[in-house]
């Protein structure tokens, strides 16, 4: 056996650094350029060092590090393992360890939303690793690499075979893979080069319904969730947040020590926390302090009932530059349309509303080092935010992540709320502090999914074909990742969204996020018009209504008006809405799923409204509606069947059918569950969800004032996976599913009643006033 050598494996470097008396492994790491290595925080796992990403061990097991945190969609424990096992040609059970999301033990991985970018990374990393295994086998057996094969964790060549584990035993082997990108950026690093990828026709693991191995630990009660972490000497804290989104502290309430002997109040600027070793005492004491705390008054919001008018009449949309989306032909010089559809649409603020409010535990030591136990989609960005707040280097901060309640994008820029407050309180009292937000804190002091309004103008030619499509979308931006505790305390944090804010995604602009799909239309003009966050400039604390991406961000806000308008245009043309879409898409993938949707959903081919449509009466009327979306290489189509009771304004969704072509489907079982749930989340958004607010504060404070879908309302759900592995791409998981329901439901409402509805949610009060208008 050769003992020291470096071999190029399709551009990656394989080296043997030592022969060991025991142990041995092949470590797969990323070759980061020196500038990137400098950009890395000193205490994040150096991706250029061994033990990053993938490790093949002498006992034939494989360790995988993802840099991603478990957010319940199981992908890091199922899809990621399957992709690595597939490219390596090992049984999936051999991938035994998946280390996720702690900043000191995994490479930086970008946000969880980048999962499938991560999957392509892992696929390539595993492919390089397999090629390295082939090389090691070739060296050992003394045969050409090209004559070697791998299967089931065994490498074969000539007439010899060896397991991967035996091949690496007793050696310190390193494979360094080429990458590009910025280690600390939102999107992390990308693996480059072109290692040979296994043909999808040879797949035996990708495409299988592998179960999530960590579910047992959750179901049995063994798993430690973020709210379960305890440290010796820990104090429980509850926050006393301002009464409005612009109120300053006048005086903090006093505690009666005879009633609350173990409690204390900590005040830092406008930040007020109440702490006790006894959690129930902390809750009661915080209530008492809140009742006795004085805040300045502030009014600077339009109120949710006037929001639509505010957006249309009060905002100066000329203040900031627009962003262009699809632009083709010329909408202004196109021939005069035979018929036009022109309408405005509205999308309210919504809340991420995790079932458990956000909770964090911080331990700030006397030497200034911080360990923060939390649940974050982007631990690396959180680390940098906390360091900035404290004026410390990132090396002083370690983020540990745990399972928690899904919050659907709220922490993809690092924080979800409570993390910074726990750190500041712990620093102040010199003990570990656990901050649990109560339900109203989580509704009122978290970010919201931004509102939006759109003007759509469609021109039909004499044959009823769309000849022009013009969309202007208006709204605040989608990303404010400021630490709210730091803002209240008057400590450094990144700036609020402005046109020149270069941090993360905080730049104030409004992209056209809904991919244009009706390629047959010759004249198209789409624009996004941004404005400042509502109330932020009026708030003395620069807070106001803070926005944040949530499931299919901005694309949902823009796809809803587009798809409802397309269904209305189809009605104007006298065409069935599925047929009308088939007439205007060129993509064969869309044509295939739309045709499939017609069969699977029990669709009646005819124009809308239904011949039985009625906008009055106590009897139920029924309708059907459709929507489509293209997102991250995923082609989606949805049909909704609804029942409307005009007199009561009740809308019941009876059936939802989704057909999707995502190219390669890694795990049909997990995908089906994700899509069923994501789609129902969207049904709840369509029927119920709107964040209410008055002139100073969010007034949706609990599940009564912010209702979500219940079990009773669950319609029949049909999910049809139309996989196309030959496409060779991974389309995305459940995120698109949640946005599809609303436009299909609104179109079905139009079909049922003959009255278009151009806003969500379809609450009885809105429905009644619209039907009687």
């Amino acid at each position, binding site marked *: 056996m050769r003992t020291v050598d470096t071999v190029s494996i399709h551009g990656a470097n394989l080296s043997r650094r030592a022969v060991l008396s025991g142990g041995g492994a092949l470590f797969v790491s990323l070759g980061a350029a020196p500038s990137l290595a400098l950009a890395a925080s000193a205490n994040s796992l150096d991706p250029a060092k061994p033990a990053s990403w993938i490790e093949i061990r002498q006992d034939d097991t494989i360790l995988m590090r993802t840099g991603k945190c478990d957010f319940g969609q199981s992908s890091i424990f199922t899809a990621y393992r399957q992709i690595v096992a597939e490219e390596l040609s090992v049984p999936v059970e051999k991938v035994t360890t998946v280390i996720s999301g702690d900043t000191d033990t995994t490479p930086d991985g970008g946000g969880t939303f980048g999962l499938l970018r991560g999957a392509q990374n892992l696929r390539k990393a595993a492919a390089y690793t397999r090629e390295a295994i082939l090389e090691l086998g070739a060296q050992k057996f003394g045969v050409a690499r090209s004559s070697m094969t791998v299967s089931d964790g065994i490498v074969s060549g000539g007439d010899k075979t060896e397991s991967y584990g035996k091949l690496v035993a007793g050696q310190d082997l390193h494979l360094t893979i080429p990458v590009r990108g910025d280690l600390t950026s939102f999107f992390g690093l990308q693996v480059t080069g072109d290692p040979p990828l296994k043909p999808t026709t040879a797949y035996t693991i990708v495409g299988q319904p592998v179960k999530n191995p960590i579910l047992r630990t959750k179901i049995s009660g063994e798993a430690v969730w973020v709210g379960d972490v305890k440290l010796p000497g820990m104090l429980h804290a509850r926050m006393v947040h301002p009464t409005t989104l612009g109120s300053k502290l006048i005086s903090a309430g006093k505690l009666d020590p005879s009633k609350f002997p173990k409690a204390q109040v900590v005040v830092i600027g406008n930040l007020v926390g109440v702490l006790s070793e006894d959690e129930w005492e902390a809750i009661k004491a915080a209530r008492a302090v809140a009742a006795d705390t004085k805040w300045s008054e502030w009014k600077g919001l339009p109120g949710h009932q006037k929001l639509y008018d505010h957006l249309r009449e009060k905002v100066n949309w000329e203040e900031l530059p627009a962003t262009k989306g699809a632009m083709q032909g010329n909408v202004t010089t196109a021939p005069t349309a035979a018929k036009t559809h022109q309408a405005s649409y509205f999308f309210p603020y919504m809340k991420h509303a995790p079932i458990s409010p956000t909770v964090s535990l911080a331990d700030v030591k006397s030497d200034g080092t911080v360990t923060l136990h939390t649940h974050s989609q982007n631990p690396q960005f959180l680390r940098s935010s906390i360091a900035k707040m404290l004026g410390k280097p990132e090396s002083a901060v370690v983020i540990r992540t745990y399972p928690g309640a899904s919050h659907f994008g709220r922490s993809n820029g690092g924080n979800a709320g409570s993390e910074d407050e726990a750190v500041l309180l712990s620093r102040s009292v010199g003990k570990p502090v656990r901050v649990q937000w*109560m339900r109203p804190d989580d509704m009122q002091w978290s970010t919201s999914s931004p509102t939006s309004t759109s003007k759509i103008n469609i021109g039909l030619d004499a044959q009823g074909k769309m000849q022009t499509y013009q969309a202007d979308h208006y709204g605040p931006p989608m990303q404010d990742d400021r630490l709210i505790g730091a803002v209240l305390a008057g400590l450094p944090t990144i700036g609020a969204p402005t046109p020149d804010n270069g941090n993360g995604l905080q730049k104030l602009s409004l992209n056209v996020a809904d991919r244009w799909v009706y390629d047959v239309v010759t004249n198209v003009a789409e624009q996004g018009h941004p404005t400042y966050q509502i109330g932020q400039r009026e708030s003395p604390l620069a807070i106001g209504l803070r926005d944040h991406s949530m499931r299919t961000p901005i694309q949902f806000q823009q796809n809803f008006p587009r798809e409802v308008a397309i269904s209305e245009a189809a009605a104007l043309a006298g065409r069935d809405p599925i047929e009308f879409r088939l007439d205007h898409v060129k993509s064969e993938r869309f044509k295939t799923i739309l045709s499939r949707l017609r069969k699977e959903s029990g669709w009646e081919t005819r124009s809308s409204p239904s011949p039985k449509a009625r906008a009055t009466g106590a009897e139920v009327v029924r309708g059907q509606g459709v929507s489509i979306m293209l997102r991250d290489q995923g082609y989606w189509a949805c049909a909704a069947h609804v029942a409307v009771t005009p007199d009561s304004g009740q809308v019941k969704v009876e059936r939802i059918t989704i057909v999707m072509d995502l190219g390669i489907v890694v795990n049909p079982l997990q995908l089906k569950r994700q899509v069923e749930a994501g789609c129902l989340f969207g049904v709840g958004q369509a029927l119920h969800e709107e964040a209410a607010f008055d002139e100073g504060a969010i007034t949706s404070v609990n599940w009564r004032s912010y209702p979500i879908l219940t079990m009773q309302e669950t319609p029949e759900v049909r999910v049809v996976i139309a996989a196309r592995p030959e496409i060779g791409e991974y389309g995305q998981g459940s995120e698109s599913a949640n946005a599809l329901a609303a436009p299909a439901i609104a179109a079905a409402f139009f079909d049922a009643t003959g009255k278009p509805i151009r806003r969500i949610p379809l609450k009885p009060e809105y429905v009644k006033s619209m039907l009687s208008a």
Partner: protein
Amino acid sequence: MVTLNLNGTQKQLKSSPDTPLLYVLRNELGVMTPKFGCGLAQCGACSVLVDGKEIRSCVTPISALEGKKVTTVEGLPARWSELRKMSLNSAEQTLHPVQQAWIEEQVPQCGICQFGMMIKVTELLESNPSPTDAEIKAALTTSGPSPHLCRCASYVAILEGTHRAAKIMAEATK
């Protein structure tokens, strides 16, 4: 001092009697499956069984539970072993049928509401061993102080998980 039976074991509680059971379970007794969701009995994340009936531990002071039998998800295998007269050890290996079904059907998305869901479904199946879809939906929506909410909206999976659990229980009692 309040005394109650937790998952088969007598416990004398040190916490003050007005403390809601949720905080006593989590902080004094180290029983962590009941989760804090709202503190308002509006979501069901903190549900436990008291003498076989589902209650919201976030609003139930321990003073109301003197001498009662409290079951959390940690105690479901023991509850099943007692019902089935099987060894506790083997019940802990296999888990309660509702837990088994939740794994087989891959019910959870994030999973934090599922402890309350499993408690409610256990209550349902103990009184109605083969519920219809409508009965399951009613149990999880209108039978208690509030609907049991799942923000991930895993309701289809919960429905299928409940039917699967009913089947496992029926087969075990044949």
